[in-house]
């Protein structure tokens, strides 16, 4: 089995683990994702300095 295949297998196993959580546990996970997304929306984006003016 190649490294990539092993990685995909591990990922599939991890996804199956998440699927076997109880419904309330999955909802709480989704709530945490929502909070993170909300925070990203609130935080100001870092500004990238433009090229120096001549």
């Amino acid at each position, binding site marked *: 089995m190649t490294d990539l295949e092993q990685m995909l297998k591990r990922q599939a196993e991890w996804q199956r683990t998440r699927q076997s*959580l109880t*419904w309330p546990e999955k*909802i709480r996970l989704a709530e945490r994702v929502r909070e993170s997304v909300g925070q990203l929306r609130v935080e100001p984006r870092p500004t990238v300095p433009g090229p120096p003016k001549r």
Partner: protein
Amino acid sequence: MKELALLLNEMQREGVIQDYALFGATAQMRYTEPVATLDADVLVAVASADRLDVLGGIYEFCAAKGYRPEGEAILVGAWPTQFIPAFSPLTQEAMEQAETADFDGVAFRVVRADHLAVIALSVGRAKDMTRVLGLLESGAVSRDAIMSLAARHGLADAWHRFEERFLDD
């Protein structure tokens, strides 16, 4: 989410709504792995369906309880919640045949997997197609069950297109 279950059960007890069932992504998660979603969707049958503002009673009840509107939704605990009147024979049936799940000790009416899949099929956005695939992959619903329900609600063509596009080799 438990707060939403308690609120909906209370609304039903008080006669503000006749029936309800959670659907959409939050309901899907009963069967699949967790998915990212921003709000909760609830099908409702309202007691006063003849009112011009069909959802007025719900908004009034929620306001009296201190829940405030947020855009098209009402914020209940962590969840902006959209109340959607059961608008078609399919959504009416989905609500009537919903299952009563247990959410941390609270009864919570949730649309069944086959109805979730066929409602998603009827809406037809990319994320709805993903929902159908997720439900199939989880084993919560079979292709035959979706086909049968879809056909009963005039969605046989939509299902065949879905099969051709995503399932047939």
